[in-house]
């Protein structure tokens, strides 16, 4: 007699898996990675390779030899963390910085909590902030490495646009003077080298990745839109009050990791809220904290800290901001 499979409905399953979702995020990072290789050459390749290899190896070793559990490195989540971290370092970073960052990201921020899905804080950001605090000189040196297949890039200023602005303002210069002195232009911010970490050379490449993630329905737009909107409004108000001492809103969005942070870091599934309401509040929180740090804090960028601080609020947001239930409000009933 024929034996049939008997199991509860539904009898079909969608094609998405953790692996396919992580793979899509990696694909969305490819434009930024290519642009960074174009501008920084071997240095960008080196960082990405060390980052990915270390992240995967650390997860494997911990699962295989320390906790002796199922090995999950083939879900690409460790590789994604390594890649993201490499794109968040200054282009001239030495390889061992990348190595330490990946070990901290996977070993401490991810595996100690129980692996994929269990961590409270974004592993790549924990890695980045660990490096920023431990190696402040290297992590703020944004000079551009020499590239073996591309010569003649303007020598980098060694600092990011935001830190130039912050220092300039501290010296009593106006925004106009700072812009003219440094030849800032929005075309350059969109396409290239305004000074920043490896992955944020081109805003356009990041936006391309964002569009890909939206089309593939990997992420929803709520978090990035809330962050960028908040930054625009917050900096817009200050800019309108006194444009001489405040950078304009567009400058604030295009520099200092707002795009890479809001598109790729803040939308990390594990460490962001579940409901759309929660996502919007989380995004607004990140935007406000970022701007507070930029205007009154010690760091010129701030979004890494803002995301980590908001990560901590996610369980609370999940508890208090539930999705709209069906049938709560009866119309015409």
């Amino acid at each position, binding site marked *: 007699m024929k034996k049939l499979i008997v199991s509860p*409905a539904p009898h079909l399953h*969608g094609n998405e898996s953790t692996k396919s979702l992580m793979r899509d995020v990696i694909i969305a990072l490819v434009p930024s990675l290519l642009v960074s290789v174009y501008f920084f050459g071997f240095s960008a390749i080196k960082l990405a390779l060390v980052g990915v290899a270390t992240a995967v190896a650390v997860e494997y070793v911990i699962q295989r030899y320390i906790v002796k559990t199922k090995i999950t490195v083939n879900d690409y989540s460790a590789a994604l963390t390594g890649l993201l971290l490499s794109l968040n370092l200054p282009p001239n970073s030495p390889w061992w910085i990348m190595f330490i960052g990946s070990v901290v990201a996977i070993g401490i921020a991810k595996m100690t909590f129980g692996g994929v899905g269990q961590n409270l804080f974004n592993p790549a950001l924990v890695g980045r902030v660990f490096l920023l605090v431990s190696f402040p000189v290297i992590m703020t040196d944004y000079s551009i490495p020499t590239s073996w297949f591309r010569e003649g890039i303007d020598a980098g200023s060694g600092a990011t646009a935001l830190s130039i602005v912050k220092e300039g303002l501290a010296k009593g210069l106006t925004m106009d003077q700072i812009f003219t002195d440094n030849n800032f232009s929005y075309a350059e911010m969109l396409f290239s080298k305004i000074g920043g970490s490896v992955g944020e050379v081109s805003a356009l490449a990041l936006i391309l990745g964002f569009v890909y993630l939206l089309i593939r329905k990997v992420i929803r737009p709520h978090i990035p839109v809330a962050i960028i909107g908040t930054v625009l409004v917050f900096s817009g108000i200050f800019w309108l009050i006194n444009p001489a001492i405040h950078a304009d809103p567009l400058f604030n969005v295009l520099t200092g990791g707002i795009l890479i942070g809001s598109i790729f870091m803040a939308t990390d599934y594990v460490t962001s809220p579940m409901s759309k309401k929660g996502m919007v509040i989380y995004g607004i929180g990140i935007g406000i904290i970022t701007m507070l740090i930029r205007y009154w804090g010690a760091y010129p960028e701030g979004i890494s800290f803002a995301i980590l601080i908001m990560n901590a609020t996610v369980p609370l947001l999940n508890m208090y901001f539930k999705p709209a239930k*069906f049938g709560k409000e009866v119309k015409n009933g």
Partner: protein
Amino acid sequence: MSKTFKIGGIHPHDNKISVNAAIEDFPVMERAFISMSQHLGAPAEPVVVKGDKVKTGQLIAKSSGFISANVHSSVSGTVHSIEMMPDLAGNLAQHIVINVEGDEWMEGIDRSPEIMREIILSSQEIIDRIAQCGVVGLGGAAFPTHIKLSPPPGKKAEFLLVNGAECEPYLTSDYRIMVENSEEILIGVKLMMSALGVKKSYLGIEENKPKAIKRMKEIASKGYPEIKIVSLKKRYPQGGEKQLIDAIVGRQVPSMGLPIDVGVVVQNVGTALAVYEAVQKNKPLFEGVVTVTGKCMPEQRNFRMRVGTTFESMIFAVGGFPKGAEKLVSGGPMMGKAVSRIEAASVKSTSALLLLTEEETKRGEESNCIRCAKCVDACPMGLEPYLLNRLSRANRLEDLEENMVHDCIECGSCLYVCPADIPLLDTIRLSKGKVLKIIRSRPKK
């Protein structure tokens, strides 16, 4: 503009591969196995005994209790036995087994193809006729239709909604009757409107069935102005009662409430056809259209089939068990039941027999929840399946009730989308049963 419901929903591939197979009569089998529990509520009580001669359409079991339905013989012949047998899911139910001899129908059943348009009966007479003929809801739950058409005192229906959405993948039985029996369906709708005393009815069809929409609109415009044909977006579970009401009239049935609480009664197009046949043709519900389909099947068919036909005979009618078929589903792939024994027989509400290969029906190995919130986005009731799953596994019944586990309509959308292959609905279904039991055991206010 096509309409749709507001919360959640998914878009599985519709796989309507049997869509062009016209309805054929399925040959009458040698032996019919007619269950006494083909409807929601108390089983029917047999009124025949072993050895009795019965005709096709003869009453063989009477409704017992308030929620119950009559059962009629789908064949003519001799009662072989009345015994407890496992149904398609393996649960024991009383069956009347009839050895078939010829196909002699009861006198009084109008078998002519002529369409009877004139409605002569009063509301109460229509409801009584529907009850006599054992009509039940053919959309899935098999709730006795005459009860749904008699709202409790104090509740008044304003609209009748007719479900032609057929949002489940693979199924085409409703589609075929909408194309082939369009006017009969509209007359059935009119009869139910008359029974309910409502002035306006909406018949919703998903836009992946343009032919059915066109045909129904054509006929409705010619003589049924009170029935509006509504085009719906293709989205699962649009055919869910609550979702359909939300989609068409924009009202949301409250938690633990019924459609009548928002002034609506919902019936399926198959039910409308059965009502037409019962009232205008005096034909009890003993046959219906069943889609026999599956990608692994050599042929895709839509059969008009007598109740009590075994799944085995359906499979053999289309060439035997196909290679690689590992799962037999009665109904659609999202909410249908896996059949444990092919000797089990069809019931009034059987809509399809679907064969799936192991590859098609495979669930991946469960991994950690990555909190992607895809289940939250998919849930058409606005629940949080990831949370309900966690609470279910910890058996935290109070928290489950607080998070409205009892609102779950078991559509399976959460499990379908979960990238980590967590058996969300499996665990939620179990705890939903427990919580409902607790809620129902509380003294009523």
